[in-house]
């Protein structure tokens, strides 16, 4: 009986260990929380956006972890699209930040508080 064991993947697709998935998920929610703190705490506009990128990361990690748990590729596919959107958003956000910086010579987000009027 000839058996085809694997086709060149690095590791076979076997069921994952639950502990690993749990650690990964714990990491994901911690990173999300830290990203939230960073977004709400930093006054620098660029670092604000960086914190949102951190939150994206956490979400991607969670997707991949769950994909592994269910042994489905859809998790990783979702991460591809998250990556795409994050890239597009970062580009535009940074462009706007630069424009704002040129106006007020400061990266502080509180410089733009008069916009509420």
């Amino acid at each position, binding site marked *: 009986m000839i058996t085809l064991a694997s086709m060149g993947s690095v590791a076979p697709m076997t069921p994952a260990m639950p502990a690993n998935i749990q650690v990964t998920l714990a990491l994901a929610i911690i990173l999300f929380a830290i990203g*939230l703190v960073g*977004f*709400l*705490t930093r*006054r620098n506009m660029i670092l*604000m956006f960086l914190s949102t990128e951190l939150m994206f990361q956490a979400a991607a990690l969670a997707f991949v972890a769950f994909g592994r748990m269910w042994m489905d590729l859809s998790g990783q596919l979702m991460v591809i699209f998250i990556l795409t959107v994050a890239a597009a958003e970062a580009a535009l956000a940074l462009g706007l930040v630069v424009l704002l910086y040129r106006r007020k010579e400061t990266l502080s*987000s*509180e410089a*733009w*508080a*008069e*916009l*509420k*009027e």
Partner: protein
Amino acid sequence: MSTVAIIALASAFVTHATAHTPTASMEPALLTTLALALGDGAIAAADGHAVDAAHAVHSTSGYADVGPLHFVKAVANTDFAWLKWMLLAPLVSVILCGAMAMFKVKGRLPALFTVAAFGLSTAMAIALYFQFGPTLFATHAPLTVPFMDWLSLTWGPGPFQSFTANLGFYIDGISMLWMLFVTVLATLIALYASEYMESDLKAGYARFFFAVSLFVTSMLILVMSDNLVGLYLGWEGVGLCSYMLIGYYATQPGATAAAKKAFIMNRIGDLGLALAIFLIWTNYGTVQYDSLFQAIAGSTSEAVQGGWSKAAIPFLLLLAVCGKSAQGPLFTWLPDAMWGPTPVSALIHAATMVTAGIYLLARMAPFYTVQAIGPEWAETALLTVGWIGCFTAFIGATIACGQFDYKRVFAYSTISSLGYMVMGLGVGTAFGGVYYVFTHAWFKALLFLTAGAVMHGMAGQVDFRKLGGLLRVPGFRLTMICMLLGCLWLATAPFSAAAESKDIILLTALTSHVQQVQWMGWIGVLTAGITAYYAFRVWFRLALGPVKIEPGADQHADHGHDDHAGHADHAHGGADAHAGHSAAHGSGTFHPHAPGFRISLVLTLLAIGSVLAGLPSYLAHSQGFNWIQRFVQNSSAWMRAGNSEEHGQILGRDAHSTLFIIATSVVVAGFLLAWILHAKNRALGDRLRAFMLNTTGLKWIPLGSEHGWYVDQFYNAIIGIPAWLGAQLLAFTDRFVIDGVIVAAIGRFPGFIARVFQPLYTGTVQSYALTMAGGIGLIVAWVVWVWLSGGAS
């Protein structure tokens, strides 16, 4: 002239004393026969046997207890369906005059329609008398004529489960009498008004006749209706027209205030009437006169049930009478009603509307019997009626003594006379009251119309201190003579129709077995003297003395003067004199405007009528009956019809002659006092008045009399002050509680809420993000810890 009068009176006294004395020398048999013939022959019961003499004793000596009641059941007869035209003719006039008022038609057409309609009603009333009168006097059965269905409700089979109040006619003695004199007087006064109101031809003429026609329609509904609701309808209608006509000169604030006052005080009376109708229905189950009278006649005094609700009925009716006829506490509206045009005063506030109260008392007389409310309540009710009347008569007379406005003097005299009528019904003689109503209508209308003629000619001058000697002013002689006749009648000069009628009231009062009633009688005698005084005070001041004419402020007079350029003007005595005088207008001399043909005609007719009003009494001996008394005896007030012949004793002597002496004496005394103070020696009168005003103890007499004993001010105080307090309280509440607290709170609330949330709007992105994240956090927390764990973690 005065000595002649005294000799005439003395001779008259002698003849009367000898002729009108059924002394004790007459046999008792003749006495009884007379009683049978005059008093009780008319009260034949349906089964035909004459009522015995015991009944005669009851009817003459009984005060509250008049013995068993026999009401003959009314007979329905559709042959008299043409009676509806009595109502419809004035109603057509209402519609036409209303249309003319709406379309602002100028011209005398409204007056024409009104007089024609009233004349038609008069003709029909007279025809009714001739066609139905004999039947009534023979069978004593009132007539009912159905006219129109109005309220006819049945919601069950039992006696208290239906309500019928249709527009039908109930013709008995007093209805017929009222119909007769109301229509005749209305026609005459409408004719008078057609000339009197001519200054308003361009504005308001049609409106006046609209209101007058509506008034007569309502008054006829009032007297002709066969149930209490119809009476109430007419009652309200005349109140409304009174309001409209008092406030006719709507641009004068005094007139509108007087109209409101009249209406509101009438309303208080209307409350009494309405409550009485409600109580009557709850106790008897019907509001039809016929059924009511049969029900009352059927009950015996021992079996009276119903307690207070039945006993309250006569008192509530008395309240209604006070409101409508200006009695008791509610009399203050009548003097103010003089703001209306004089024909209105004559028609409504002298002859017809104010007599509606007397009509009510006569109609509702069965409710004042022991069969209706028991012996003690009946006596109390009748005594109350009597005292109210007596008190009002006295008060009215005393106030009239102090007035300088001759129209107001006549108004107070009306109040006083109405007091006499009410007193008459209270002391037990409905005949006396109704007869006095009849005669009073004639002479009071005459007095008011003469006053109107004087006002009309003197450009609205109502203060008789500014006029004088009018008897000698050309053109006013007739007016002054008519006024003299009226004043004589008002003062109850001996042998006048008024005296014949008023003396019946005084006779019954003074010969009563009840002590209180006798006191009422003596007060009435005193009032008669005061009446004579103030009546002649007015006439002497107006008619005698040097000619003095100060015109009033009425602009209408000038217009009227020019409008009557072609009029047969006695004041100018000729066309060229007229031209000469009219050329002199610009020089400022005032020419009084003498009354024209129509006014003079009406005054003459009324004077003749006043004289003829005494005919029933003059012819009573030869005819064997008193024409007016026959009406009353064939109505619902028959048990108190009274007997003009059979009376007791006054002061230990024969009643008739004693009363004649007493009454004539007080009248002559009043006349002499007036003659001394106002004709012979006016300076003395003025000095007397000045003396009284300067003496602290006596000052209150002339001042109080002039101001109506400050009753108006008192009412203002007890009503106005609480109203003012209430208004202040409400204003305070409005300003501080509602505006200050509630409105301010509501107004500031959105701002307050906004300020609560304002710190959220900082402008920085992170703070918004914080808020957003906070919200999300809360939601997540709730979802996880509350919802997912099923409410318990």
